[in-house]
C-alpha cells in the first residue's frame, strides 16, 4: 500500500516536472515552427526579429536558430551577417553542410577568400563524395576568381562531370579558364601612342571600336574647323585661338582616354568573368541545397 502510494506520488511529480522541464525546449521548438511559417510566407523581417530574440540551451536547437538566421539574412542579401551566423552552426548539426557551404560562398562573394578557403577546408574526407566534389568545385571557382590558374588546373582535374547538379557549371568554369588564359594583354602606352598618331585609333586597339570612331570624328571635326579659321581669318584671330585651344584639349583628352580605355576594357572583362564565376559556383549550391 505504501509502495503503491509512493509510486503514485513519484509518477505525479515526474510528469509535472517533465512538463516544466520540457516547456522551454518545447516552446522554442514551437517558436521555430512559427518562424518557419513566417519564412515560408516570405515574412523575412518578422522572422529575423524573432530569431534575434531567441536562444536555446540545447545546442542542436541553437544550431537551427543560427542556421535560420543566417539563411534569412542570406535571402535578404545581408551576406556578411549571414556568413557570420552560418559559420556558427556546429559540425554536429544536420544543417552544417549547407550552412558551411553558404558561409563560404558569402565570404567568397564579399572578397574574403582566405576565410572562405578556411571554411571549405572544414570538409574533410569523412564527408560524402558529393560534398567533397562540391568542395573541390568551390575551391576551383575561388582559385579562378583569384586568377590562380595553376591551382585551378589542379582542382579542375578532379571535375568528374558525373554529378548532374554541377556538371554544366564545371564545363563553364573550364571555359572561363580558357577565356582568362587567352585574354589579350594590351599596352596602355601603345594605345596612347596610336591615338596621338591617329585620333581614336588607341580606343579601337583597346577594343572600343565605336568610341574610337566617335573620337576620330569629333577631334577631326575640331581640327578641321581650326584649320578653316586659320586659313580664312589668320593666326591672330580670336576664333582661331579659341578653336585651336579647344582642339588641343580634345586631342590630348582623346589620347588620355585611349590610355584609360585599355584598363577599362581589362576591368570590364575581369568584372564580367568574376560575376559569371560567382554565379556558376552559386547555382550548384542552390541545386544541392534547395
Amino acid at each position, binding site marked *: *500500500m505504501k509502495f*503503491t502510494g509512493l*509510486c*503514485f506520488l513519484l*509518477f*505525479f511529480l515526474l*510528469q*509535472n516536472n517533465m*512538463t516544466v522541464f520540457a516547456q522551454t525546449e518545447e516552446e522554442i521548438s*514551437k517558436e521555430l515552427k*512559427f518562424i518557419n*511559417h*513566417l519564412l515560408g*510566407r516570405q*515574412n523575412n523581417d*518578422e522572422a529575423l*526579429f*524573432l530569431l534575434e530574440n531567441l536562444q536555446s540551451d540545447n545546442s542542436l536547437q541553437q544550431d537551427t536558430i543560427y542556421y535560420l538566421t543566417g539563411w534569412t539574412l542570406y535571402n535578404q542579401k545581408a551576406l556578411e551577417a549571414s556568413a557570420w551566423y552560418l559559420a556558427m552552426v556546429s559540425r554536429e548539426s544536420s544543417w552544417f553542410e549547407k550552412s558551411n557551404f553558404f558561409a563560404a560562398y558569402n565570404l567568397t562573394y564579399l572578397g574574403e577568400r582566405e576565410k572562405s578557403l578556411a571554411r571549405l577546408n572544414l570538409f574533410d574526407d569523412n564527408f560524402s563524395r558529393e560534398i567533397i566534389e562540391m568542395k573541390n568545385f568551390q575551391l576551383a571557382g575561388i582559385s579562378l576568381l583569384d586568377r590562380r590558374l595553376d591551382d585551378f588546373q589542379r582542382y579542375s582535374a578532379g571535375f568528374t562531370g558525373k554529378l548532374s547538379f554541377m556538371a554544366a557549371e564545371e564545363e563553364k568554369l573550364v571555359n572561363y579558364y580558357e577565356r582568362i588564359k587567352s585574354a589579350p594583354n594590351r599596352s596602355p602606352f601603345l594605345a596612347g601612342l596610336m591615338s596621338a598618331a591617329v585620333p581614336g585609333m588607341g580606343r579601337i586597339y583597346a577594343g572600343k571600336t565605336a568610341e574610337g570612331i566617335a573620337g576620330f570624328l569629333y577631334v577631326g*571635326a*575640331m581640327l*578641321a*574647323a581650326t*584649320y*578653316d*579659321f586659320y586659313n*580664312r*581669318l589668320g593666326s591672330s584671330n580670336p*576664333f582661331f585661338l579659341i*578653336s585651336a585651344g579647344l582642339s588641343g584639349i580634345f586631342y590630348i583628352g582623346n589620347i588620355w582616354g585611349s590610355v584609360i580605355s585599355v584598363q577599362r576594357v581589362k576591368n570590364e572583362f575581369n568584372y564580367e568573368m568574376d560575376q559569371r564565376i560567382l554565379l556558376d559556383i552559386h547555382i550548384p549550391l542552390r541545386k544541392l541545397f534547395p
Partner: protein
Amino acid sequence: MKWISVFCLIFISLCVNFSHETRAESQVEKFIKEAEELFVQGNFFEAAIAFERAYFFSGDARQRMEANLGRAQALKQRGDFSKARRDLQRSAHLSRFPELHRQILYEMAFCDYMSANYSSAIGVLGQIQHFYPEFYDSPPVMLLYSLAAIMSEDWDLARDKTIELLLLNQFEPQKADSLMGKLDIFFCECSVPEKRSPDRAAKLSTFLPGTGHFYAGYPGKGLLNAGSQITSLGLAGYMAWSNLYISGFVIGLGMFQSFYFGGIRQAEYLAQQGNLNRMAAHKELLKDFVLDLYQLSEEQNVQGF
C-alpha cells in the same frame, strides 16, 4: 488496489493532457491580447507578428479570421498594403462567419486600392455586391468602388457607382439635383482629357520643328526648340557666307542636328508626360468630388458602417 492505482494514473495523464489543450487555447487568447496591446501602443510591427502567431497557433476558424484581420490592420498602419492583402487572401473563402468574411473582403478591396491594383479591387467589391448586398449598399463600400473605378479609368462604372453613392443619401430634391448636375458634368465623356499620341508628336516635330511640342500641349517649349534650330541654322549659313565652310558645317550644323533630333525626342516625351499629367489632374478632380459626396453622406449619417 492495483486497479485503483491504474485508474488514478490514467486520470492524472488525462488531466495533464487536458490542461495542455486548455493552456494552448488560453495561449492564443494571450497572443491576441498582447497583439491588441501592442497595436494600441503603436508598435504595429510586433502587433502584426503577435496577430500572426495567434493565427498560426489557433485551431479555431473564427479566431483565425479575427487574428488575420488584426494583422491586416497592423500591416495597414505600417503602409504595407500588399502584404496585408496577401495575408487576408487566406481568409477570403466563404465561411460560417459572414460578418467577418465581408469585413475581410472589404479590407482586401481597400488594400488592393491602396497598392494600386484597381482592377482586383473592383473584382473583390463585385464579390461583396454578390454575397452581401445589404453591406454593399453602404457609403464606404460605394466610395471605394467609385474611387477604384476612377483610378482604373472605367468612366461608366465610376459614374454608376457615384450615382449609387449619391442615391444612398436622402438629400433634399434641390441639393440632389445640383449634385447630379455636377456629377453629369464631371463624369461626362467629353470631360475626359484627350490623349495625345507620342508618335504623332514625334512625326510633327520631324517635319516641322516645334509643332510636336504644340500638339503635346507645351507651346513655350515648342517655340524655344524651333528658335534654337533656326538660330543654329542661321549661324551655319552666316559662317558659310563668311567663307568659313568647314567651321559652319561643324559648328552650325552640329548644333542644328542636336536641337533637331533632341526636339523630336522631347516632343514624344512631352506627349507621354502631358497625357499622364492631364489624366492625373482629371482623376484628382473626380476623386475630390466623390470624397466630398461621401463627406456629405457622413454628415447626413444615412447609414452606419
